[in-house]
């Protein structure tokens, strides 16, 4: 009788033993941005928590809390899900730990291509890729006899044609909200023009040139084809514009395609929503877009036991074939076993076209911040492009001096 009971218990719990990664102690506390793919990722790692404490904070304000929370000793979070840009302040302040030992010991299913190495040390493990690319309304373009645009010049021409036909007042949309979003659009467009943000080998700014002017002029043309409130529109706002059928062409993050193409909202618009790669600009051959990865990093100011427990749980998700198969719609996973679906077109095209990753430089955050506030007046028509770029450089230089980069 006892034997039967034991084997029954084994049968019952045997299946879940696969998910339990046998973590005996430690506490896990994760800070992450808030979008569906990251929620899936963290949920998957939770299955592996064993008897460890497990907490997670999903917040779109993650950038604002990360540095203070990880500076504390012991730090509030044992892990931070970061991206190309948000790993930089953590590196600058020396707040994250190298993962080489842990990868060797517990990182069995993690592919080498997922490892972010800096100076030979593994500092993060990436699990998904992201970029901004074009979305278009197939029905509208077909009606008007417009080919799917591949350059921003074609996007402008197509939008003007749609506006002239009277079908839509504001046919184009992109996240131009003053601040981080607007600066990100500048970064994309500037890289598309072949620009480099800093003079080679220094932190001196290098944007006040013909490429910078061309970038601003293109942004302005596009903004004139957008809803006049564009300076207040973030990704979520333009998603709503799209779902209301006000927009025919849009530049948006790949990670948003999941919610754009779900069953909610007007079925006709959803059916006509199609994805394509990012556009090029100014005759360049690399796309006007930046590639992003999302990956996990571990806090330095936390005990080794917590770091180990956290790594094992997160590594379980970062090598989970079942997760990438079940959630293939939510993101372009970098995990082994991922089969790209129709929603991954944007990122895959961007990689094929040779898109560049977002620059992972210590002073890039300051440049991004200066761009977000200083180019607004140009878009409002209050300032020349040269003056706006001069302002950006001056604002950046003051900040970089205060931070000791210049």
């Amino acid at each position, binding site marked *: 009788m006892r034997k039967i009971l034991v084997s029954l218990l084994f049968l019952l719990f045997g299946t879940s033993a696969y998910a339990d990664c046998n973590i005996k102690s430690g506490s896990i506390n994760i800070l992450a941005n808030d979008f569906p793919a990251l929620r899936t990722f963290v949920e998957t790692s939770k299955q592996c928590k064993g008897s460890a404490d497990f907490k997670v904070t999903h917040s779109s304000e993650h*950038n*604002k809390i990360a540095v203070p929370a990880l500076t504390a000793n012991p730090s509030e979070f044992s892990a931070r899900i970061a991206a*190309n*840009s*948000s790993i*930089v*302040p953590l*590196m*600058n302040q*020396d707040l994250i730990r190298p993962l080489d030992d842990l990868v060797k010991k517990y990182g069995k299913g993690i592919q080498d*291509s*997922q490892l*972010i*190495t*800096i*100076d*030979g040390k593994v500092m993060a493990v*990436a699990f998904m*890729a992201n970029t901004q690319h074009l979305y278009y309304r197939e029905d509208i373009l077909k009606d008007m006899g417009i080919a799917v645009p591949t350059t921003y010049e074609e996007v402008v021409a197509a939008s003007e044609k749609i506006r002239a036909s009277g079908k839509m*007042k504001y046919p184009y949309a992109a996240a131009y*909200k*003053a*601040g*981080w979003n607007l600066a990100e659009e500048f970064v994309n467009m500037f890289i598309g023009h072949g620009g480099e943000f800093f003079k080679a080998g220094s932190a001196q700014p290098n944007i006040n040139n013909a490429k910078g002017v061309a970038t601003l002029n293109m942004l302005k043309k596009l903004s004139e084809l957008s*809803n*006049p*409130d*564009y*300076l*207040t529109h973030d990704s979520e706002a333009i998603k709503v514009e799209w779902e209301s059928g006000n927009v025919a062409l849009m530049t948006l993050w790949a990670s948003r395609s999941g919610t754009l193409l779900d069953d909610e909202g007007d079925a006709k618009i959803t059916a006509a929503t199609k994805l394509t790669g990012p556009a090029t600009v100014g005759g360049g051959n690399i796309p006007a877009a930046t*590639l992003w*990865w999302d990956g996990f990093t571990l806090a330095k100011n936390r005990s080794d036991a917590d770091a180990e427990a956290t790594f094992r749980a997160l590594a379980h998700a970062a090598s989970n074939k079942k997760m990438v198969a079940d959630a293939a719609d939510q993101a372009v996973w*970098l995990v082994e076993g991922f089969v790209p679906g129709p929603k991954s077109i944007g990122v895959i095209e961007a990689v094929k076209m040779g898109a*560049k*990753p977002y620059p*992972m*430089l*210590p*002073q890039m*955050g*300051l440049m*991004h*911040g200066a761009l*977000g*506030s200083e180019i*607004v007046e140009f878009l*409002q028509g*209050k300032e020349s492009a040269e*003056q706006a770029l001069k*302002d950006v450089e*001056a*604002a950046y*230089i*003051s*900040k970089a*001096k*205060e*931070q*000791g*980069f210049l």
Partner: protein
Amino acid sequence: MPNKTFFWFFLPTGLAMILFIGLPIISTGIQSFYAQHDQVVKEVKKCDPFGCTVSIVVDNEETTKIRDAKPLGKFNGFGTYIDRNHLAVDEIKKFWNETESFGAFVDQVTNLPFYKALIFTLTYCLFVTPNVLLLGFIIALSLNAVARKIRGPLIFGTILPMIVTPLVGSLVLFWMIDSQGIIGANIQNLMNDPYLSLKSSKTLTWITIIIYGIWHHSPFAFVVFYAALQTVPQEPIEAAIIDGASRLQRIKHIVLPHIYPVVTFVALISLMDNFRVFEPIIGFSAEGSAQSLSWLIYDNLVNEEVILFGSAAATSMMTIIGIAILLAPVLIRTWKEFKTAR
């Protein structure tokens, strides 16, 4: 009250004020004189899923050594105060020498972030404060004249704008003035201009925020004035009526002089509040068109991935000085009255 009693009475509050207001201000002041150490960077190979590049990172070992030796940072004196993002002394000198007309000079100066923010902050103060006083006074007078029965519900309705959280209040208005919102769309129809947007025009954004400010702050003035009106003695008013004084004359010669100290008090508090205008800028997503001093501090602390403590501290100190300057005339006047009263 004898001085000794007053001292013991005030001690707990005084201690709390020193601890939670005085010391942080001193610490902010000290911080504003320091900048970060020079960054030690090194070239390394970075690899990510998209390939490998050679680029720079901060050399943490070296940085830690320097930081441990001098944890406050590099002494910068008034360096942060006079840099381009604050008082911009060098830039202003340059503009003065280079520009040909005074108008061009003003244009250049108002393009600097600190002055841009200062101008918005002052404009906001100068429009909102008097209007709040006036509107609050008019509402208080009218409500005081209304039949007692309906006064309760009316007062409640009047102070609603103050009860609504500033962020929620501004968001409601923000959606109404959207180009597809009830106010925004109607204005487009009225003006017959489909590209008109309250949110993208700088002037219209300023006007919206100022109107919101008046709407939000008036109830405070009203409540205080209404309370003060209850203390106005009836005899002189009745005497004035018998003498044939009109309603306006009665207000001018009896009511206003009586509640004058309260008016000063409300003016002081509103000026202080308005100088620190912040929530409506976030609520209206108006960062592009309107920046206040408080918003600059916020921007330095949270909007950048690199936190600029020195900049934020310098702006904070200048905000405090700004408030002191604004309040000075009222404070001096109160002090003089206090002295003559004794």
